[in-house]
């Protein structure tokens, strides 16, 4: 027979307490499902041991594509008639570099946006449950799973770290 699992939501008013709880949970066999917060706390990010985001690669790819797009667009249009303008070569490096530069920024930002959308998997309108609106306001939230039999142990750990605790799955009782 499968062991009954429950989810426990710990809510912290303090960033340091939340980071400490994350570290504490990392040292146990309980799994952290999600961590929410109103600010991008680096302490919590470090405690979670998350890898560096790969958004930058999209940005870099966009920037490189942009430079060549801008420069080659200017060069292509100039070579359609190959007229000497202002005594400069048909494919004039300095002015076309400026076009290339602006396109670099533009496409790098497009790459950045694509990176954010694909990495964060947003937009995502499916209801997140359990969720507390205070996670965007003034509380850090940690959602953990444990076997029903070890519920009290998990709750005690979270409370010891300063959390308001709520059992949200398998048992509707407020703990």
């Amino acid at each position, binding site marked *: 027979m499968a062991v009954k699992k429950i989810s426990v939501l710990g809510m912290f008013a303090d960033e340091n307490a939340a980071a400490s709880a994350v570290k504490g949970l990392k040292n146990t066999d309980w799994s952290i499902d999600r961590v929410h*917060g109103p600010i991008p706390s680096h302490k919590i*990010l470090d405690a979670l041991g998350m890898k560096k985001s790969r958004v930058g690669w999209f940005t870099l790819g966009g920037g490189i594509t942009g430079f060549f797009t801008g420069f080659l*667009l200017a060069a292509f249009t100039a070579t359609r008639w190959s007229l000497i*303008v202002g005594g400069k070569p048909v494919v004039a490096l300095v002015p076309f570099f400026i076009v290339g530069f602006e396109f670099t920024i533009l496409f790098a930002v497009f790459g950045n946006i694509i990176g*954010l959308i694909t990495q964060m998997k947003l937009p995502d309108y499916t209801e997140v449950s359990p969720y507390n609106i205070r996670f965007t306001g003034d509380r850090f939230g940690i959602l953990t799973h444990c076997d029903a039999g070890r519920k009290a142990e998990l709750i005690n750990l979270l409370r010891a770290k300063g959390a308001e605790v709520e059992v949200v799955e398998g048992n509707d009782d407020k703990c």
Partner: protein
Amino acid sequence: MELTYEKIDNTVLATLKPPEKGYWVLVSLLLAGVLMGASCWLYQILTGIGVAGQNNPVAWGTYLINFVFWVGIAHSGTLISAILHLFRAGWRNPIARAAETMTVFAVCTAGLYPFIHLGRVWMVYYMLPVPNQRLLWPNFQSPLMFDVVAISTYLTVSSLFWYTGMLPDLAIIRDRTTGIRHKIFKIISLGWTGRFEHWRHYTRGYLFFAALATPLVISVHSVVSWDFALGVVPGWHTTIFAPYFVAGAIHSGLAMVLTLMIPLRAIFHYEEIITIKVLESVAKTIIFTGLIVGFAYGTEVFIAWYSHNAVEIETFRWRAFGDYSLEYWIMVVCNTVIPLLLLFKRIRTHIKWLFAISIFVNIGMWYERFVIIVGSVGHDFIPHAWGLYTPTIVEFGIMIGSFCLFFFLFVLFVKHLPSVSMTEMKESLH
């Protein structure tokens, strides 16, 4: 009482409560101004560009003056949101959102002027890299084409940066509203829930935005300056123009930040968020940019004298003592002398003084563009081609309309979206 996360949310969310009658009166007045400006533009389109006062030798009048003015206003928004973010200057957090918004709306307003100045606005596609019926392509060696690319990039990047920065705040509003507002904010917040899996990517992406916006903002006003500097016209053809324009742009933009923030702070009771210390920091930066601008004014005159070039010398003599000398001295006094008052702590910590000085700098920076644009082409190489320029009532109408458009958009923004970044304010508490 000390600021807390809850207090920040409550203060900012209180600004989004249904507005009073006075707000709608203001919105209506500004809308009337926008419609008046649009009517003047329509009249110009139907009648011809001749209804504006631009003619030989001054072919670039208020349309270009206002274009440069509004692009300049935009710049300090990016300085505050991007450059100061990279420098981790905590005082920018309370004003970053409003300054970024100012950037977006100022670029929108600026972007209208090339269309207005075209006269035959339906020919606008000539500026785009598509072959028209004569199989001609735009000339990318022209600084005007650099401008098309730079300004459209700036508008796109600023808008995306603004929206991305607002995402966590939109979720805060979504979580505290009901009905149709909840539905709207649910859509535009894209399902943000503050998960650290999201924050991990978001902080990285936001950093790259700031890192990209920083060189962009410097390049944009440099490109705008090259519209002039690459022309062989006395007073324009100088290498100092790019840094001079960038410093001037930030100078004017910071003044506009004060012009907008001071009433915003009083109306929305932001005193604990936008503290006098924040306004003082803006004032100190204005002293710095004012000194750079003053140095640039002095350098221009010095180089004209030092060059022994008769035309350059005559141009700068005429600027200071000729037909537009009043405009020249308004520029010098408002941009370099009056900001020096901010050296006194009593003045830079006094709201009324700050507001008054910001208005003077705004006026001075508008006149700077007037002096540069009209003062050079009106009095260049050949004495018999010299001439004066006076804006017509159509130009005044369009100019007033553009100011109304900017304030109309800003006034709509402050009651419908968070004018202070709640998330960044919370971050600054740590």
